[in-house]
């Protein structure tokens, strides 16, 4: 490993910074990993109930949200590329698009949740008593996992908001863009977790 780079720039080690971010992303994956284990176990325990419950989720909203997140991930990646090519303004526009798409995702999620809650399907909700154990668990997992994911979407949006400020103030530039890249990595994580949540809750019937 090249140590001279680390010593030459005592206060800036891009590779180290990126490595730290990747390690942090591992911990995030494991955080959700625990939930995925629970999902797998309960699906094995209650296969029929899970099928019934999954039928009641709106695949259309799920698909729209998937497209939104995937596109927003693309724009983050493009924004880094734009910054590297000194297209600062374009890079900021791309990040703004990401924030809009991420925001739209949350709005969709809000309507999806409130419809369910309106029908009395939420933990301790009036409708839950009529459901089977497996369905209760399914919705429990659904709320916890998508809720935790939505929390990550919000955190990611805040990060990206900061990146816009940094770029506009000239703190992230074409030769110093590690923070933006890390924020991008985080956003891709948010994206990839959704890629797994979507089929598990919406598509597998």
């Amino acid at each position, binding site marked *: 490993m090249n*140590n001279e780079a680390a010593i030459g720039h005592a206060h800036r080690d891009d590779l180290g910074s990126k490595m730290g971010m990747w390690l942090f992303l591992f911990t995030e994956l494991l955080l959700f990993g625990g939930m995925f284990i629970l999902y797998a176990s309960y699906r094995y325990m209650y296969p029929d109930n899970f099928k019934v419950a999954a039928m009641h989720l709106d695949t259309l909203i799920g698909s729209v949200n998937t497209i939104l997140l995937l596109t927003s991930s693309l724009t983050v990646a493009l924004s880094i590329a734009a910054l590297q090519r000194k297209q600062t303004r374009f890079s900021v526009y791309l990040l703004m698009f990401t924030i809009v798409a991420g925001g739209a995702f949350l709005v969709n999620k809000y309507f999806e949740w409130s419809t369910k809650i309106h029908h009395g399907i939420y933990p301790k909700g009036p409708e839950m008593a009529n459901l089977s154990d497996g369905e209760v*668990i399914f919705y429990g997992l659904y709320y916890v996992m998508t809720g935790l994911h939505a929390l990550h979407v919000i955190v990611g949006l805040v990060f990206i908001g900061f990146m816009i400020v940094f770029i506009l103030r000239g703190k992230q530039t074409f030769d110093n863009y590690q923070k933006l890249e890390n924020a991008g990595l985080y956003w891709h994580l948010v994206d990839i977790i959704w890629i797994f949540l979507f089929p598990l809750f919406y598509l597998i019937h």
Partner: protein
Amino acid sequence: MDHVSYLDYKGKHKGLAGWLLSTDHKRIAILYLVSLIVFFLVAVTFGVLMRLEMLTPGRTIVDPQTYNTLFTLHGVIMIFLFIIPGIPVVFGNFFLPIMLGAKDVAFPRLNLLSWYFYIFGAFLVILSLFVGGGPIDTGWTFYVPYSLRTQSNVTLAVFAAFVIGFSSILTGLNFIVTIHRMRCPGMTWFKMPLFVWGLYSTSWIQLLATPILGITLLLIMMERIFGVGIFDPALGGDPLLYQHLFWIYSHPAVYIMVLPAMGLVSEIIPTFSKKDIFGYGPIAMSSLAIAFIGYLVWGHHMFSTGISDTSRAIFSFLTFIVAIPSGVKIFNWVATMYKASIETRAPFMFVVAFIVIFSIGGLTGLVLGALNTDIHLTDTYFVVAHFHYVMFGGMGLLFFGGLHYWFPKMFAKMYNERAAKWGLLLFVIGFNTLYFPMFIMGYLGMPRRYYDYLPEYKIYHIISTVGSWILVTGILILIINLIRALLKKERYTEADPWGGTTLEWKVATPPSLENFDEIPVVEHGPYYRENLIKPEKSH
């Protein structure tokens, strides 16, 4: 280049703020040290009170509910606030950069943030005692469904553990990047001191296991606040899944506790044996092996819960396998001491005590890892004795060992060695008097966490309680001796008091703010001595 030591350095902030806001890894280490010792003494006090309660059958000093909170708080504080952060945050923070020939860790500000997470978590633990339903009474494992039903303030306490977990993850992440990126020229992977290997393995476990605990604790909170039902059998949830998730973290966590201690042993033994370490490679690799296999043995905490025979056999087998790398270490340490001209200074005596006590703990662990004996011994005092032998006798003893080894370097003061040895002797006598009877009464059937007991166990409980008094006397002698050394006026500036070979003995005492005037270039292994063939006989 200035030679101002890290103790005297005056930066942007003065006085206490100069410590609380400093991102210097050495000052952060001292912040941790002070906080850790405070929480250690608090938890020791709870432990002593528990032993006092068990002195006689029935009520001695507290009622049953208070006893439940005592053992819970003793466990929670000891594990989350002392043993798990323990050696890495104090000695790792202080010495990892110096041992690697670096000026600081990779992310100094993140390092300070970790301390604030730790303190915030500790604050929440304390807060949970006074608000809501009062102090938790679930035991440190927070097992469902009781932790979902009890009126005590579980929600806040598990949130505290969650926050402290964050601190642990960030420290692990910081150390891994530091070890990958900050090694000085010539410091190849296999020229790193073995303490660094211990920290490296530990950091991976911290990073990869703690998130599972995080999500598990979050789910407990969700259950209690919203009633999601994931672990609640009344709603179709499976409490056993909670135990799986909990131990997926909490078993590797015992290696978080003990691997740095083992790394420390590998530092102290060559220093006082005046020899190169025997079997550098196997010791380094056994740390990684323990970290890896330690991941796959969590099921041995659940042998009596009704999990399938196949999985029980596999978990039992893997538990036996994990003993092998620990054995490799012990044999290599003993081989290093073989035919060495050993200086029996205070830090070395801690290591000797560690090897004996830890071996007892390790071997009784195999008794518990075997399926048939475990059924007899599970949830008895035998288990309590076993994990105190490995945790307290492993990490706890070595925490003090490391403190005595590095104290002169950290504080530029030298303690009274006779007092330290007497303190250690009382520690060891008290320790065995306290915990060895627990093996016997556990074998006879005394269940753990019970408030009351049958008269036939009385004699063991009396011996054990007397042992706790001796042990506490030893601990107090050790700590007061160090505090007296701190109060000495004159500074101790010997750079290398023990004849150590690793980089921390090459820098000034106390280390300067940036550790090194010039980044060193390493040519030899960490324990290389020029006079390797003819040991120096000056003592």
